[in-house]
């Protein structure tokens, strides 16, 4: 699997767009009572949003392998962002209420299913994104031919 500079730039852009929903869903999954808005730990909603989040990587990337790597990449970035959100009271407000054990408990033990959903939803979104792109491309080609015949 070879990456060009353009591929990496594209992956970085996709991660920038797709990471915030992943970060929010992770934080919301841990603290549904204080997050705004809240999905209330609904895994179906998480999967649906994961599909939506995965769509740009399929829509903007022709290479399927690259699109799938993008899914892993933005999930990792989003997760890291969620860790930062959890640390916000400590880092921003200098408060010691943050429980260090929670890093392990919340981000490595309780959220395995969540990670799996992000990746699965991301792959589904990737495929859906590619289908939409191909469908738009076919429509455009069809219209161009029609236009050509009429003139």
């Amino acid at each position, binding site marked *: 699997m070879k990456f060009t500079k353009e591929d990496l730039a594209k992956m970085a852009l996709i991660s*920038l767009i797709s990471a915030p929903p992943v970060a929010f869903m992770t934080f919301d999954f841990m603290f549904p009572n204080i*997050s*705004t808005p809240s999905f209330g730990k609904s895994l179906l909603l998480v999967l649906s949003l994961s599909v939506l989040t995965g769509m*740009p990587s399929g*829509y903007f990337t022709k290479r399927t392998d690259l699109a799938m790597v993008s899914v892993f990449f933005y999930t990792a970035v989003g997760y890291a*962002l969620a860790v930062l*959100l959890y640390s916000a009271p400590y880092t921003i407000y200098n408060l010691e209420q*943050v429980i260090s054990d929670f890093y392990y408990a919340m981000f490595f033990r309780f959220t395995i299913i969540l990670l799996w959903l992000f990746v699965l939803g991301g792959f589904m979104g990737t495929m859906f994104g590619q289908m939409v792109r191909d469908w738009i491309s076919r429509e455009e080609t069809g219209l161009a031919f029609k236009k050509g015949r009429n003139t």
Partner: protein
Amino acid sequence: MSILKKVKRHWVTVTMYIVLSLFFTGACIVSANTYGAIAQAQRDVVLQNPQHDAEIVQHGNLNVSFSIQLVNPSRYTLHIYTLSWYSTLVNSSNPTDRAIQIGEDYVGPTQYLEVPAKTTFNFTFWSIVSDPATLAKLTGFINYSKGLGQTYTLETLSYTHEFSIMLFIGEFEHEYIRERYLNELVTVRLGYSSEEGTP
């Protein structure tokens, strides 16, 4: 360069996703801010100015009172879940009845008491001791202490006051029974004991 071209070509889709991303970025910021404010409230909500008094009132009855302030500088209303006050006298003269019960009060979750945001709330409790049996125990203790060379009156006896309160911050109480940490996150537990001193 080719990325920019693609972005321009698919500007509707790109804009849509940027809006979606911005929405969740905003949600992340709002949630982290709430989380920070809750952590701050847990540190800033304190008890202060505990005061206790005992005086003889009509018919020789004893009035034992206790007051304490709860300072809530946070932006959230605090909902009182439980609140309790106990006043006793430690009776070292009697090995079987070591604590003489003077007064008590308890407020449970069904009372719906609130401490509004950015306010200081005063709690005042008092108990009129008119029971002759209790008064006799107190007088007995005074007489016992006199024998040991310590002079007390009903008003100067060292009554102990125990106060504890459990509050929920804002409307963040949750209903998931299995995940207690969610309620722990928004719970403030404070206590004061006159034996230990400052709250």
